[in-house]
């Protein structure tokens, strides 16, 4: 057995998931509160620690110390299972995200799978079980309605989510996220093909279907992560708190954190697919090949760039949340099935036609 591979994977899991992603989850909660406060002309939590940065710690302690109340009318097994089913897939999907180039000669991805996006969609769709089980096992009407809404919403948008990535995969001809990012680092980000081979008529024209993909993908991701304007599973004004109404203490916190973890991993995926992952624009500091070892400081910069992009994307998530009102349920379904599904399918055809017309070998 290759013990060093196992140990390296273990270290990467601990560092990336527990030392980088989970604190980022906490910080996202803090940022959500501070940004929403600023948008609404308030101050937000600024008491605990400098600028209130330790507020998530205080929240965590509060959640741990609160009474963990399980109502008598719930299905206990599933009631206990549901929160983990929300949290675990969200963190599992982070396994295939390339969050840097190399550090100490190790590629900065936990699992260098050749089916990255497929793995993410497969695992992320398990989240719906957590929400449905929570809604059903609570044995109470509002959680039930929230669970029902959530399942139909997530299943509907998963289709456009998956289809919107197809044009991109066609373009790169690869399902390995690491290779996709490397390609973008050399030849221009999917949305910004301004250097390398991307800076050509073909690259610029193909950026149009990529942009459509990006819009559909981002919107579908909002729906997948149950964020406003698609937070119908837990809309406070209609369903009390939706599927987690009956939950308390750390079990509730797991739902809460799972949502944010899903948001971070979703942002990570979006950054990886459309915004060049760990790469700096214009091919700066890009290693020529996978085999080439990068200096330690460059490896750190790449990780920093990846997380900077993710954080920027999370801020976008947050601003959208405090900008747009919630969709009505029929509008949500109409948007998912009548517009995005069709747009995603047409986009695949458009990309295929464009790639055929602009193939490097053809006269055009």
């Amino acid at each position: 057995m290759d013990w060093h591979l196992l140990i390296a994977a273990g270290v990467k899991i601990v560092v990336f998931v527990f030392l980088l992603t989970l604190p980022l989850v906490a910080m996202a909660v803090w940022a959500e509160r501070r940004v929403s406060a600023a948008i609404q002309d308030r101050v937000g939590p600024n008491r605990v620690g400098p600028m209130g940065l330790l507020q998530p710690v205080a929240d965590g302690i509060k959640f741990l110390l609160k009474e963990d109340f399980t109502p008598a009318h719930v299905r206990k097994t599933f009631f206990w299972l549901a929160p983990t089913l929300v949290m675990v897939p969200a963190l599992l999907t982070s396994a295939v995200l390339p969050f840097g180039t190399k550090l100490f000669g190790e590629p900065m991805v936990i699992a260098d799978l050749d089916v990255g996006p497929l793995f993410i969609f497969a695992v992320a769709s398990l989240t719906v079980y957590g929400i449905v089980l929570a809604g059903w096992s609570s044995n109470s009407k509002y959680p039930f309605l929230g669970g029902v809404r959530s399942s139909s919403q997530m299943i509907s948008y998963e289709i456009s989510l998956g289809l919107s990535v197809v044009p991109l995969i066609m373009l790169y001809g690869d399902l390995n996220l690491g290779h996709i990012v490397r390609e973008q680092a050399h030849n221009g980000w999917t949305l910004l093909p301004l250097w390398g081979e991307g800076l050509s008529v073909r690259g610029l024209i193909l950026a149009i279907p990529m942009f459509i993909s990006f819009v559909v993908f981002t919107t579908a991701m909002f729906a997948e992560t149950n964020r406003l304007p698609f937070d119908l599973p837990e809309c406070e004004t209609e369903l009390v708190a939706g599927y987690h109404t009956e939950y308390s203490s750390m079990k509730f916190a797991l739902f809460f954190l799972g949502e944010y973890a899903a948001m971070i991993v979703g942002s990570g995926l979006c950054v990886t697919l459309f915004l060049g992952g760990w790469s700096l624009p214009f091919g700066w500091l890009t290693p020529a090949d996978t085999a080439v070892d990068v200096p330690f400081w460059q490896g750190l910069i790449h990780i920093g760039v990846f997380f900077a992009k993710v954080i920027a994307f999370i801020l976008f998530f947050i601003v959208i949340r405090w900008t747009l009102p919630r969709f009505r349920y029929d509008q949500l379904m109409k948007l998912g099935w009548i517009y995005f599904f069709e747009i995603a399918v047409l986009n695949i055809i458009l990309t295929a036609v464009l790639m055929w017309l602009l193939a490097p070998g053809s006269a055009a």
Partner: protein
Amino acid sequence: MSKIVQRPKLKWSERLYLPAIFGGMKVTLRHFFAILTRKKKVTMQYPEEKWDAHLPNHYRGAPTLVMDEHGRERCVACQLCEFICPPRAITIHPEEIASDEKWAKVEKRPKTFEIDMARCIYCGLCQEVCPEQAIFLRKDYVVVGHSREEMVHDKKRLYELGQTMDGLVHKWNELK
């Protein structure tokens, strides 16, 4: 009679929804950066910043007992405040002034005077009713305690809060 309101016909750019999103984000981001760059003052950071200097003289804070300019007790234990107090927060136990004392004509003085701040509603009726101007609502508004007992202000505490105050007091008038 019902009136049918025609929904406005939207242009295709409006139906696209994306321009509306950016319009909305422009509004939210304007507020966001106004706060971020401190162009807009939000609110007073209470425990650090206080508005105490601006409190008006008629501010109704905690009720207190006041002494006159010679440090003498103004209260004559008439118990009018105790009777008028709507939440019955005031408890007075009067005692008699012995006839050989100088101010025997006053007859009564408070042996104990307690205001239960857990009950007080800061209405100011005690101050209004007091014939000797002995009880005043001062500007203390932070009245806290760990137990109900701590929330009861006894005579000592009431004088600590009230201090002295000038003004006409009938009690020290020989003729009245």
